[in-house]
C-alpha cells in the first residue's frame, strides 16, 4: 500500500523534494553565489527528468481521485524536459537577479500543479491542479519587479485567469447538480446533451479555452507574453499550454465522449477562428515576443484540428505535435531570451543583420521558425501533417482547406523574420553574444529534437503505442 503511494506519486514527490531543497538553500545561513545555485538547480532538474523514466506503473490513488498510467508519465516527462530547457535558457537572466531561487520555487510549484491536473480523475482535483498551476504563474509574470510592463502583464493575467476559472467552476457546479458526482468515470456514463448539460459543457470549454488562448478567449495572451520576462513567456506558451491540452484531450474524449457530435462543431468554430485571427494579427507585429504569441495562438488552431479526430490517432497526433512544438518554440524563445537578457532588444527590426554577427544563433532561430511554419524536413511539418491527417479522418475537408491556406499565410510572417536575420542589414547590428554553456546545451537539445523527430518517425509510433494497448 505505502509502496504503491511512493511509486505512483514519484514524479510529484521528486518535484516536491526539489522544492524543499531550494527552500533550505534559500533559508540557509551562508549566501551562495548565483552561478553555483543555478548549476545545482539545473543538475537537480536533470535528475528529475531521469527519475521520470524509472518505475513507470499504472494505478490510482486517493479514492480514485488521482490516476496515472504510462501515457500520463510520458506527458509528465515531456513537461519535465521543457522545464529543464527553460531553466538552462534563463541562466543569463537569472545570474544577476536577486530572487533566482524564488523564480524556481514558483515555477516548480506550477509544474506540480500541472502534474496533479494531468493525473486528475475527478473535477475537484482538476480544479486544484489548474489553480496551483496558474496563480504562481501570475506572480512569475511580475518577476521583473521594477518594469511597469511586467506588473501590467501580471495583473492582466491574474484577472483573466481568475475569471476563466470562475466560468469553469460555474460549469463544474452545474455538472455536479446534474450527476451528483465529480468522478470522471461516473460523469462519462451519464453525460447527455440536455440543455443544462450543454450549458455546463460550454462554460467548461470557455474556461479551458481561456487557458489555451483559443480565439475569442485570446485577448490576454499577447499582452501577457509581451510584458512578462522571456523565460516566463516561453514557460507560459509551451509548458502551461501543453499541460492544458493533455487535460483537454482526456476530458473531451473520456468525459464528454457522449456528446462528441456536439463538441465537434464547437471545436470547429473555435479552431477556424483561432487560426485566422492568430495569423492575421501575427502579420503586423513588430515585437518578437508579441509575434511569437500570435504565432502560438495560430498553432492552437491546428492542435484543435487534431483533437477533433476523436480517435487514437487524434490524441496521439496532439501529443506528438506538443513534443515538436516544445522543441521548436523553445528554440525560438531561447534565442530571443538570450538576446533580450544580454542587449535588452526585443523588436524584429533589431534582429536585422543578426547573421553577420551571430551566424550560429541565427541558424538555430531559423531552424526553429522553419519548424514552427511546418517546412519539411523539420519536425514541424510531420507534426502538422499528423494533425491534419487525424482531422481529415472525419471528412470535413472545408476545415482542412482552411488550415492549409493558413499554413501558407503563416509562412509570410515566419519568412519575414528570417529575411530580417539573413538578408537585411543595419549599421549597428546586435554585437556578438557569448552564449555560455548552459544556453548552448538547451539549443543543442532543441535543434537536435527538431531534426531527429523530423527525420526518424519513431516518435509518433511510440506515442501511438500507448493507445493501442
Amino acid at each position, binding site marked *: 500500500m505505502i509502496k504503491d503511494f511512493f511509486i505512483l506519486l514519484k514524479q510529484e514527490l521528486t518535484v516536491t523534494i526539489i522544492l524543499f531543497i531550494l527552500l533550505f538553500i534559500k533559508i540557509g545561513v551562508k549566501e551562495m553565489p548565483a552561478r553555483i545555485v543555478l548549476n545545482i538547480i539545473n543538475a537537480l532538474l536533470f535528475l528529475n527528468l531521469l527519475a521520470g523514466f524509472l518505475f513507470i506503473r499504472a494505478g490510482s490513488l486517493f479514492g480514485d481521485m488521482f490516476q496515472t498510467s504510462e501515457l500520463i508519465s510520458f506527458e509528465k516527462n515531456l513537461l519535465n524536459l521543457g522545464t529543464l530547457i527553460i531553466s538552462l535558457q534563463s541562466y543569463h537572466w537569472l545570474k544577476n537577479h536577486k530572487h533566482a531561487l524564488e523564480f524556481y520555487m514558483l515555477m516548480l510549484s506550477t509544474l506540480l500543479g500541472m502534474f496533479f491536473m494531468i493525473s486528475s480523475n475527478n473535477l475537484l482535483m482538476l480544479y486544484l491542479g489548474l489553480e496551483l498551476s496558474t*496563480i504562481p504563474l501570475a506572480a512569475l509574470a511580475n518577476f521583473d519587479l521594477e518594469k*511597469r510592463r511586467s506588473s501590467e502583464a501580471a495583473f492582466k493575467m491574474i*484577472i483573466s485567469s*481568475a475569471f476563466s476559472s470562475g466560468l469553469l467552476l*460555474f460549469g463544474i457546479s452545474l455538472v455536479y447538480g446534474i450527476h451528483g458526482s465529480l468522478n470522471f468515470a461516473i460523469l462519462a456514463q451519464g453525460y447527455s446533451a440536455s440543455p443544462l448539460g450543454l450549458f455546463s459543457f460550454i462554460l467548461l470549454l470557455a474556461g479551458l479555452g481561456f487557458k489555451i488562448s483559443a480565439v475569442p478567449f485570446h485577448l490576454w495572451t*499577447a499582452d501577457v507574453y*509581451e510584458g512578462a520576462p522571456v523565460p516566463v513567456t516561453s514557460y507560459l506558451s509551451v509548458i502551461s499550454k501543453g499541460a492544458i491540452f493533455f487535460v483537454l484531450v482526456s476530458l473531451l474524449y473520456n468525459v464528454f465522449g457522449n456528446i462528441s457530435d456536439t463538441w465537434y462543431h464547437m471545436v470547429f468554430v473555435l479552431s477556424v477562428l483561432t487560426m485566422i485571427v492568430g495569423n492575421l494579427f501575427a502579420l503586423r507585429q513588430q515585437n518578437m515576443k508579441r509575434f511569437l504569441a500570435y504565432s502560438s495562438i495560430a498553432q492552437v488552431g491546428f492542435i484543435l484540428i487534431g483533437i477533433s479526430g476523436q480517435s487514437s490517432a487524434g490524441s496521439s497526433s496532439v501529443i506528438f505535435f506538443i513534443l515538436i512544438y516544445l522543441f521548436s518554440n523553445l528554440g525560438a524563445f531561447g534565442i530571443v531570451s538570450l538576446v533580450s537578457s544580454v542587449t535588452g532588444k526585443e523588436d524584429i527590426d533589431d534582429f536585422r543583420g543578426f547573421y553577420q554577427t551571430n551566424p550560429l544563433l541565427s541558424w538555430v532561430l531559423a531552424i526553429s521558425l522553419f519548424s514552427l511554419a511546418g517546412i519539411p524536413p523539420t519536425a514541424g511539418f510531420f507534426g502538422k501533417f499528423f494533425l491534419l491527417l487525424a482531422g481529415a479522418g472525419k471528412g470535413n475537408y472545408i476545415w482542412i482547406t482552411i488550415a492549409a491556406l493558413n499554413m501558407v499565410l503563416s509562412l509570410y510572417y515566419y519568412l519575414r523574420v528570417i529575411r530580417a536575420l539573413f538578408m537585411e542589414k543595419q549599421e549597428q547590428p546586435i554585437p556578438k553574444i557569448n552564449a555560455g554553456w548552459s544556453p548552448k546545451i538547451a539549443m543543442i537539445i532543441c535543434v537536435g529534437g527538431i531534426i531527429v523527430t523530423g527525420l526518424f518517425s519513431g516518435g509518433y509510433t511510440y506515442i501511438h503505442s500507448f493507445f493501442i494497448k
Partner: protein
Amino acid sequence: MSEIPVTHILFVSTALFFIGMYGLFTRRNMITMLMAIELILNSVNINFVVFNKYLYPEKLDGLFFTIFIITIAAAEAAVAIAIIINLYRSHHSIDVEDATEMKY
C-alpha cells in the same frame, strides 16, 4: 414551516454570477474588479451547497468543493493584491485605464 424551493436559491446564485460578470467588465478600479471575481466564486459556492443539500444530501462532495474554492480564492486575492500594490508603486494609480502600455 415550508422549505425554500431550490429554484429560488439557484436564481440568487445565477443572478450573483452575472452581477459579478457585469462588475468585472464595467468597473475600472482594480480592487473592485477583484471583488467582482469574488462574487462569481461565491455564486458557485451557493450552487454547490444547494445541490448538496437539496439533491444529494447523502454525499459531501459539494461541501468539500466549497471549502477548497474559499481557500483558493483567498490565495488568488493575496497574489492579485500583491501585484496591484506593485503596479501602484510604478503607475501611482489603481485604475485599469492607466495600465495600458501594451495594446493590440
